[in-house]
């Protein structure tokens, strides 16, 4: 019987690594049809996270035609069920897996380690393997620009955000939103309501109404998959914006804009690499410069001079000369977040666990 020792573990790890290196070079036969499976936790609607991911696969289908076969498994709860379903789809011969939620990380990573011929893309995680790439969007670049627009339109000087969970990805979007708003009106305040759920339309709508009752007149729908917040804001006559895909049709008058994500350049490049046998797992953090993040459907009410400034900054973000997280930035508790003149590196942005000054709601611990 083999004992579980550090040495054995190292051997096993080395073997997996070697197999990974060999596998990615030899396992792909060019004439074989590639099965691509996308697994997502919520149902696919006309809008939202799942919609953005599935739409990102359309150009891949268009480019490869019969050479790829796309399967989308929606509404898969994170946990053992997801592991079973992902294993099944890989066992069925689908060699390209897109695990569309953070909670799929461990199961998807196991699959990648076990079978080096499989390529796995994993949403918003941090683990990397030779055939396993986590991916995330720099939503904060867009929410900074919308913060500028929000501040220009706000009469009360109070902005709000309905947010799902206090994780770094959502904290950074709120921080950038606040910083963008402060760039236009320095004393503006942002209130946050954490609904502590990825999916509860009724509660999200109540949260939006609670913020509106506190005189917030621009609301940021932070990671809601349905138009719950957007439609409540249209009814109340306050501006609102969201992430992922445009919800303009739910709020024709008060829709401020959308930090949209287009995953197709990334998906296409990854599938290309899989076919070529050159796929290499890496932490991919994509933004405006990669044409993954883009603000669309700007509201015509935004004053022209603000819009000009926004467009200038957008161009600077795209060519890398400006980052929203450029110092001096003060934390909500008064301490220094980013030193004057310094720019926060990506590695720190993805782990951000503090609010900037101007966010009125304390961060849950």
């Amino acid at each position: 019987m083999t004992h579980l020792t550090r040495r054995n573990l190292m051997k096993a790890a080395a073997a997996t690594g070697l197999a990974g290196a060999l596998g990615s070079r030899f396992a792909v036969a060019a004439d074989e049809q590639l099965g691509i499976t996308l697994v997502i936790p919520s149902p696919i609607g006309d809008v939202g996270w799942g919609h953005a991911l599935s739409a990102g696969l359309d150009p891949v289908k268009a480019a490869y035609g019969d050479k790829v076969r796309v399967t989308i498994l929606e509404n898969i709860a994170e946990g053992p069920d997801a592991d079973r379903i992902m294993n099944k789809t890989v066992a069925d011969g689908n060699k390209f897996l897109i695990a569309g939620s953070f909670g799929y990380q461990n199961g998807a990573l196991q699959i990648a380690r076990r079978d080096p011929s499989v390529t796995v893309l994993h949403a918003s995680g941090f683990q990397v393997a030779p055939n396993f790439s986590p991916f995330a969007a720099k939503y904060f670049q867009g929410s900074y620009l919308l913060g500028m627009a929000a501040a220009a339109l706000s009469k009360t000087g109070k902005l709000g955000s309905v947010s799902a969970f206090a994780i770094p990805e959502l904290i950074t979007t709120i921080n950038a939103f606040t910083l963008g708003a402060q760039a236009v009106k320095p004393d503006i305040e942002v209130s946050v309501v954490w609904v502590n759920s990825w999916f509860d339309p009724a509660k999200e709508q109540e949260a939006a109404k609670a913020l509106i009752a506190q005189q917030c007149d621009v609301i940021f729908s932070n990671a809601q998959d349905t138009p719950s917040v957007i439609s409540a804001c249209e009814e109340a006559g306050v501006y609102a914006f969201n992430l992922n895909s445009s919800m303009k049709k739910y709020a024709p008058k008060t829709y401020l804009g959308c930090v949209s994500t287009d995953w197709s350049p990334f998906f296409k490049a990854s599938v290309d690499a899989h076919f070529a046998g050159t796929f290499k797992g890496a932490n991919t953090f994509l933004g405006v410069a990669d044409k993954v993040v883009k603000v669309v459907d700007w509201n015509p009410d935004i004053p022209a001079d603000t819009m000009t400034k926004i467009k200038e900054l957008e161009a600077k973000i795209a060519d890398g000369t400006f980052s929203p997280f450029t110092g001096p930035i003060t934390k909500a508790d008064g301490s220094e977040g980013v030193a004057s003149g310094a720019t926060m590196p990506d590695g720190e942005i993805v782990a951000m666990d503090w609010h900037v000054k101007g966010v009125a709601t304390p961060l849950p611990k």
Partner: protein
Amino acid sequence: MNAVEFILAGMLAAATPFLLAALGEMVVERAGVLNLGVEGLMALGAVIAFIVVYHGGGHFLGFITAGISAALLSLVFAFIALGFRANQVATGLAIGILGQGLSALFGKTYESLTVKGLPKIAIPGLSEIPVIGGLFVQDIVVWLSLLATLVIWATFAFTKTGLVIRAVGENPKAAHAIGYPVIGVRVAAVAFGGMMAGFAGAYASVIYTPLWADGMIAGRGWIAIALVVFGTWLTGRIFLGACLFGAVSLMSLAAQATGLDLPSQLLSSLPYLVTIIVLGIISADRRRLKMNGVASLGEPFEH
């Protein structure tokens, strides 16, 4: 509008889905049947009402069809659990899962679409009172739910129908011996409970949050069942519990919006904690609790 006004104005509407579903389940349990499928019945009602309203059928027709379809699904439960005397817990769970599955199936092409809600009706005079005025500006379904609460309370307090339902739940053998159709009464109670759950779902999907999204009931059916137990099968307490739950869940959001320094996870769990504590205190008297409990709850009836 300050936080207190916000909570008072929104409390009744937030409570309505819980209230409707819990009152229905209360009638079912008073007749001695435990139907744990409320979550699925609500989901089915929600999707049917949404489809009808989305295609221009109007809210009234939406509620009617939601009530009928959920009642029909609950009759499937009655058929298995009462007709074949299957285990009520298992059957209820199965029907609940079936209801959620059906709702996902029917709602597939309606995912994240929206409809228009209903306008609010203000009671003249009362709605102008400062601070509490918001309580008297509600949509028609909220007013009708309050009326339904009164009617159900009066039925159990004053009418023979109420006594028959209670007799069937307390001692089905005795009720049978004096000539009441035990199974018939139970089937009717289950259908009524299903209809109310359907209304509750309809309220959630076409008035309270006028959109359809698979899974939007998000556990509210289970809270309704819990409210029945914590409300000790009494209409008044269930009403109180639903209002309290609605108010505290709004409070937890309003507290965050005002920047109160409390962890949001704690605030999110407050509605559950407060409801359990308050209803626990008012039903602390074990003798009275025993008096209100339903003696034959969940037991199949054989004669």
